[in-house]
Every structure is written in structure tokens, then in C-alpha cells.
């Protein structure tokens, strides 16, 4: 899959939206982004990062990872699974002691946040945009 394995994390494109890594990340935060990019959306053949659902990552001095995420729809059928996957994935990382997930609705998720590669993968799997 994955956005961050192919391109430098600084080049992750999310269009004109103030989401995603902005180049000021610590090494650990970059690793968190890369790990989040390995978590598949349970319903769609893209990672959570490719789906532009991860808005922000912050790891504080106590090793608490604060993840801001949003969902393409408010009644997401995989709401609980996605929370579980993020916690399960990040808790095994060295340097991360706890994970806090904040669901945010600003900016509102939009298809415009998907990059060309993500659009291509959706088309190939028969999902219209």
C-alpha cells in the first residue's frame, strides 16, 4: 500500500488542506505516521493515511501519542475497528506509552483530500468517486 513508504513523508500531499505531516515532526512522530500508513481501512482498499483520515499526530514527552482523525461519514460502519486498529498498532511501538484518539470534524473530510494514487486505486477496485 502506503503513501509514506514510497515518498518522503514531507511530500505527502493532501491538497490545500491543513492536515497531514507538515515537516516539523520528530523522528518518532514520523514513525507513527509510517505505521498509521500501514493500517488498512477496513472497508476500502487504502490505508487510513491514504484515505486522508489522519489529520494530525503529536507525541508528548510522556510518550502519549495524540492522534486526530476524521471519518468520511459520521455513521462510519468501521468506527470502532479503526479506533482499535490505531491503538493496537501504536501501542507496540517503542517510545509510545499511550494512545489518545480525538475524532475531529474540522476540516470536514472531502474527496478532494485524496491524491492521484489513492484515486487510481479506488477506480481500480470499482469504487466511483
Amino acid at each position, binding site marked *: 500500500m502506503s503513501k509514506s513508504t514510497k515518498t518522503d513523508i514531507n511530500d505527502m500531499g493532501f491538497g490545500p488542506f491543513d492536515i497531514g505531516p507538515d515537516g516539523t515532526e520528530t523522528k518518532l512522530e514520523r514513525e507513527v505516521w509510517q505505521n498509521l500508513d500501514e493500517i488498512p481501512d477496513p*472497508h*476500502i482498499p487504502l490505508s487510513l493515511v491514504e484515505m486522508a483520515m489522519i489529520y494530525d499526530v503529536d507525541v508528548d514527552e510522556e510518550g502519549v501519542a495524540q492522534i486526530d482523525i476524521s471519518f468520511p461519514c459520521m455513521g462510519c*460502519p*468501521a*468506527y470502532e475497528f479503526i479506533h482499535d486498529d490505531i491503538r493496537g498498532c501504536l501501542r507496540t511501538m517503542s517510545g509510545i506509552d499511550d494512545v489518545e484518539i480525538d475524532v475531529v470534524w474540522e476540516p470536514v473530510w472531502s474527496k478532494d483530500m485524496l491524491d492521484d494514487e489513492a484515486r487510481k486505486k479506488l477506480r*481500480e*477496485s470499482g469504487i466511483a468517486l
Partner: protein
Amino acid sequence: MSAEPATLSEEEFKEQLQNGMMVESVDEMTEGYKKALKQILMVSADTEIMSAPAYYEQSLNAPSLDARASCVSVIQDELGHGHIAYRLLEDLGEDREDLIFDREPHEFRNTYGFDQHIDNFAELVCAHGMFDRAGITLLGDIHENTSYAPWKRALTKVSKEEQFHLRHGETWMRRLANKNESTRQKVQEAVDWMFPMALEWFGLPDDKKKHDDQLEYRIKGKSNDELRQDWLGRAMPFLNEIGIETPAHFDEEADEYVIDYEFPVAFDEENKEWDFDNPISWDDVIDRWRSRGPANEKYVEMIQSGKVDVMP
């Protein structure tokens, strides 16, 4: 295409398909291929659409809002999968409207499992976990091996969504099995009737099937027994892990899963109980399937009554 199908005998066509030839459209098919493809697509389409009414009532009985959203999403997916398969049938000359709305209940070809009443939430999640697992096993094989290219492409989306249903089902089966004795018992009771039904789903054992057009035309890639073993190989470790008993075990010597009763056996539809001491023939099983199960009429009515005639 190396030759027009009209000039090829069925045997020659089968040989080309076995050598990897893909079929893109109805113009490239022999009559035999078209017939075999229609038959399996009809079972697939009807099974997908009839899972929707089967799942409906208990989805509204889900124990949390998140669970309910997941269950309702499964129904929406299944209707979408049905739509895809009926659309493919339309390319083969069938009429989608007629197939869905103008057939009698007994004319539907869905798997017998979706002719059963699903009576509580434990049964619903066991259906997601075991029946959708059977669906994934069958469609996964087709996705990987089929010679019919439009179906192969369409199944990319279907397979991913079915994985979600399975995860939802197994997550809840595990939760209920671990919660308390009463919820564990509900899962066990559901597995007791659904497990043998899933085994039957894969059809006649290979040694009872004289020939299989769907394999010979490479519409699917694996035989009934291979698919049954695939299902067992994935369902059994999970069921063992959550402490649910099943009438099958892995035989080290034979290096395969073995069913612990004389398969197939009689089924008491009213009480949803298998009579393991009463073996029957596969002809009997097929007769039971053809006469459809107890919820068949109700489910078809649920689908067909949803039609609204819009004035032109």
C-alpha cells in the same frame, strides 16, 4: 482470442480456457460456457441479495450504535454485491428487473442458509462470521482463478467488503463467547446449526460429481472439497480458539479436516437441529434445497415489496 467460439467445440474451448484464456464478453463464449456461467452467477446474485433480508431484523437488535451501523452497512454491501452480479447477468441476456421482482420465491437459487430465520443477535454475527466466510471462500477462488474477466474485476470491491463483514462477525463472536456463560451458549447454539449448513454449502463431494463444467470452463478454480477444506482451515482454528465446539477435527494422518458424522444428514427445519444419526443422500439434500427453507417466502417478499412503481 485465438479463434471464434462458434468454430470451436466445447472441448476445444475448455482446453483454451485451461491454458489461461480470458473471456471478456458474450460474443466470445460458447453456449456451454454461457450456461455454466449464468448458473453460478445466479446462485451468487441470489445469495447476496437474500442475505440482506436475512440480516435485517437482528441488525436492528444490535447491542450498540456502532454495532448497528456495522450491521446495516453489511446489508448495504450485500445489496450492492447482488446488484453487481445481476448486472453481470444482464450482459448475458437476462433482465435484472425480472430476476429480482418477477420470480416466485422458490425460483431463487440462493444458498439454503439464507432461507433460514435468524432469530437473535448471536445468530446474526455467527452468520457474518461463518456464512460470509463461506462466501469469501467461494468468491475468493473465483476472483483469483476465473476465466470471466468482468467478474474478476468486479470482485475486487466485493472481496474487500466481505473481509469487513467477516471481521465484524468474528469480533462479535469472540466477544459473546468470552462475555458470560449465557452469551457463550448463544454462540454455541448458533454454530450448532450453522456449521453443518456451511459444510453443505460447498455442495456435492468431488467423488460424487461426474463432471464439473464450472471447473472445466475455469469459471472457478477449486473443487467443492478443496473449497470445503479451505473454509474448515480458516473457520476451525478460530472456533477452537474461542472455545466453541464443532462436529469436525483435524486429522494429522490424513492432513485434512474430517467431519465427525456421516455427511450429509437430515435437518429439522422447524427446530434448526441436525439429526446426526440420520444420514441422507445428496439427492435428498438437493431436494431439501429445491423445496426452499422456512424463511424463503418471507425474505423474497421483503425484497420484492420494496419496489415502487414510478409514473413515467
